[in-house]
C-alpha cells in the first residue's frame, strides 16, 4: 500500500510540475535585452540575424531569419520626440501594398536617407516616399500613424554597405503599441508573412511608452 501511494503521489506531482513548467517556459519567454527608456533609438535591419554587422546574436534559434537588432522591444518615454536611426542592410523585396511607400506620421512628414544610387555612389537626402518596389522593409507603428518605408540597399552598392534612415516621431501617453513591417519579408512562407514576420524578436515588436 505504501509503495503504491508513493507511486501515485510521485506520478501526479511529476505530471503537474511537467505541464506547468512546460507552459510557463513556453509562454513567458521573451526576447532580450530589454533596455530602459530611450529617446534615441538605433536599430539594425539585417537579412539574416547571423550576418549582423553591429549586434551579432549568438545561439539564435533562427540565424537565417531576417530581423531587427538588437531588440524589438523598444522602451520610450511618454510625450516626447523619439529620434530613430535605422541601419538598413537588406536588399529590396517590394511592398505588398504600394500604398505604404508614403512616409506618414513623422515629425517632419519625411525621412532622411543615406543611400547608394544605381552607380554605387553614396547619396543623401530627405524623402516623403520611395519607389514601392525598392522597399526592403517598413518601420510602422499603426496605432501612432507612423509608417516609414526603408529603402533597400542598391545591388550596385559596395559590399557590406547599408542605408541609414533617420526620422523622428512623437510619443503619446503611456501605453503599449505594436510595430511591424509591411514588406512580405518572411521568405519561403505563403504571402511572405510567416516566420520572422510573426515571431517576436525578429520583425515583430512592441513600443512600450513609459
Amino acid at each position, binding site marked *: 500500500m505504501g509503495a503504491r501511494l508513493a507511486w501515485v503521489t510521485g506520478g501526479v506531482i511529476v505530471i503537474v510540475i511537467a505541464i506547468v513548467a*512546460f507552459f510557463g517556459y513556453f509562454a513567458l519567454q521573451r526576447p532580450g535585452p530589454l533596455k530602459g527608456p530611450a529617446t534615441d533609438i538605433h536599430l539594425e535591419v539585417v537579412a539574416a540575424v547571423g550576418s549582423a554587422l553591429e549586434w551579432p546574436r549568438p545561439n539564435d534559434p533562427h540565424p537565417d531569419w531576417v530581423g531587427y537588432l538588437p531588440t524589438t522591444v523598444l522602451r520610450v518615454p511618454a510625450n516626447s520626440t523619439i529620434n530613430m536611426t535605422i541601419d538598413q542592410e537588406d536588399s529590396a523585396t517590394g511592398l505588398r501594398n504600394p500604398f505604404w511607400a508614403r512616409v506618414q506620421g513623422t515629425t517632419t512628414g519625411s525621412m532622411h536617407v543615406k543611400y547608394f544610387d544605381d552607380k554605387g555612389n553614396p547619396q543623401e537626402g530627405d524623402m516623403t516616399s520611395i519607389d514601392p518596389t525598392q522597399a526592403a522593409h517598413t518601420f510602422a507603428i499603426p496605432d501612432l500613424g507612423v509608417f516609414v518605408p526603408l529603402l533597400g540597399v542598391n545591388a550596385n552598392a559596395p559590399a557590406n554597405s547599408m542605408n541609414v534612415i533617420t526620422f523622428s516621431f512623437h510619443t503619446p501617453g503611456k501605453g*503599449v503599441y505594436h510595430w511591424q513591417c509591411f514588406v512580405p519579408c518572411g521568405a*519561403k512562407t505563403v504571402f511572405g508573412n510567416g516566420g520572422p514576420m510573426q515571431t517576436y524578436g525578429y520583425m515583430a515588436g512592441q513600443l512600450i511608452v513609459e
Partner: protein
Amino acid sequence: MSMTSGDLITERRLTIPTGIPTGILFAIVGYFAGVWLGNLFGLFDDQNTGVILGYLFGTAAFLIGLGFLNYPLARVLGWPVDALGEAYESRGLGRYFRLSLDHKVIGIQYLVTILTMLFFGGVGAMMIRTALLSPDPTIVPPGQYVALIGLHSVMMIFITSAVIVGPFGNYLVPLMIGSRRMAFPRLEALSFWLVPPAAVILAAATFWGGFPTGWTGYPPLSEQASQGMDSYVVGFILIGLALVTSGVNMLATIITLRAPGMTWSRLPIFVWGIFCTSALGMLAAPVLAAALIMLGMDRTLNTPFYLASNGGSNYLWQNLFWFFGHPEVYIFILPAFGIVMEIIPHFARKPLWGYRIGVVGLFGVALLSWFVWQHHLFVSGIAPVLRPFYMLSTELISVPTGFIFLVALGTLWRARVWMTVPMLFCLGFLFNFVIGGISGVYLSDVPTDVTLHGSYFSMAHFHYTIMGGEIFAFAAAIYYWLPKMTGKMLNQTVGKIHFWWMFIAFNSTFFPLFIAGILDMPRRVSAYDPSLVFLNRWVSISAYFLFGSMILFAANIIYAWFFQPVRAVSNPWAARSLEWQLPTPVPAHNFERVPVILAGSYDYGMPNAKPVADLRGLVGATGGS
C-alpha cells in the same frame, strides 16, 4: 481457451517484448526516420515534409512497438493465436500500462489519459487568462498568446471528442447492454492508443513556436504558419482516426451484442447517446481527414487547394472543416445528453419521462447537425440565398434539444429527488445548457450574428455548451460511475463543495464574456480595449477559482481512488440499471453467463416491476465469446 494453446504462444511469440517502453523507443526511431526521409524528398527546405512524416512514422512505430502487429503477424505466419490474447486475461496494475483488449481496462486508461490532458488544457486556459489580465500583450508576448490559444483549443477539442465516449462509453456500454465484450476490441484499443500520440504531437508544436490558427485552422493562415502547424494536421488526423475506429466499434457492439431481451426500447438512454455520437463521429471525421490531408499537401507538395491566388479557394476548407466541425460539437454533447437523461431517473426514483421523445431528440439533433454547418459562414461572403435555409435549420435544432429538457424536467416533476452529487451536476448541466442553447439561437439568426460572430459572445456560447454542458455531465458521470469502475466511493461532502464552487465559478467566468462579446471584443485577441479591463480581470480571477474547483475535483478523485481504503458496495445508488447489478469489481468477462433482460432500467415505482435482468442467463447458454 485452454491453457495448452497459451503455452504454445509463449514459445513462438515475437522475441521483442512489446509494451510502452518498446513503443516509445520505436516512436523515436520512427520519428527520425520520417524526418530524414521527408528532408530527403521534401520540395522545400522548411522541414514540413520531414516533420509530418516523422509524426506519422513515429505514431505507426509506437503502435507497432506497443504490440498492435503481434496478432496480425502471428496470423500471417500461421502461428497459433489466442483470439483475445493473454492481455485480456491478465490482472494486476500492469495491465493498465500495456496494450489491453479488455474494454474495462481501456475505459480506465482513457479516463486517466483524459484527466491528464484536461489538466494540460486547463493550465493553458490559465495562461490565456493570465495574459488577459493586461489589455496589452505584455505578460505573455502576442506570438505565444496566439499559440496558447491554439494549444488550449485543440487539446480541449481532442479531450471533449472522447471525454465521455472514451472512459464511460468503453467501460459501460457492454455492461449496460449485457455483453461480455466489445465487437472489435482491437479497434477499440486502437481508438485509445491513438490519443496519447496525438496529445504528444500537439504539445510538440511548441518546439516550433506553436501554431497561430486556433482550432479552426483556416488557410491561408495555416499554410503560412511554421512547422508547429504540422502538429495540428497530424494530431487532428489521429483523433479523426480514433473517432472512426471508436464509432465503428460502438455501433457494431450496440447493434449486435445486446443481451437477449435488451430490445431497442429497453436500451438505456446513455447507450442511445453513445449510438448517435458514434454514428456522427464515424461519418464526420473522414471529411476532416480529407481536408487535413489537402492542407498537408498544400504545406508540403505546393498544391494550391486553399490558395485563391493560385486557383484554389479558402472556402473549400471552411466548408469541409465545418461540415465536420458542426457534427463534431454534437459529438461532444450527445453523450452528455445521454448521461443526464440516464442519471436523472435513478435519483428522481421515477421512470424516464418520455423515453421515446428523448431518443427522438437525440436522433433529431444528430440528423439536423448535418444541415447547419454554413451558419459558421454567415459573414464570410457566402451566397445570400443560402442564409435563410441555414438560419432555419440551425434554429430547428433547438426543437429536438428542447426534447432533452422536456424529458429531464418531466422526470423531475413530482419525483422523490435524491440530491446526490451526480444529480447536482445534472441540474447544473441543465441550467448551463439552457443558457448555452439560447445564446446559440442568437448566433443562428443572421442579423444578430453579424455583430456577434467571431466575438467573445460565441466563445462564451460554446464554453457554456461544452464546459458547462459536457464537462458538467462528465463530472456527474465520474461521481456516479466511479464507484463501479474503481470500487471506491467519492467523498460526497467534498463533491457538494466541488459542485457549488465549480458552478458559481463557471458562471462567474463565462457569463461576463457574453457581455464582452456584445461590447466589441473579438475572440482570440491578445490586446483589447482598455474599457474592458475590469470585465476581463473579473473573468480571469473567476477562471482561477474555476481552476481551483477542478483541483478539488482531481484531489477528490485521487484520494478516493488510491488513498481511501474502503471499498464501495456493488450498488451504492440502489439503481435499477444492469451495470449496477454486477459485483464490484466487475469480473473479467463481466457476466458469468449472458444475462436475460426482463424489464426496463427505469421502472421505478412500477407495481409488480420485474428485476432488470436474470443474471443466471439462458439455460444451457455458456456465453462464450
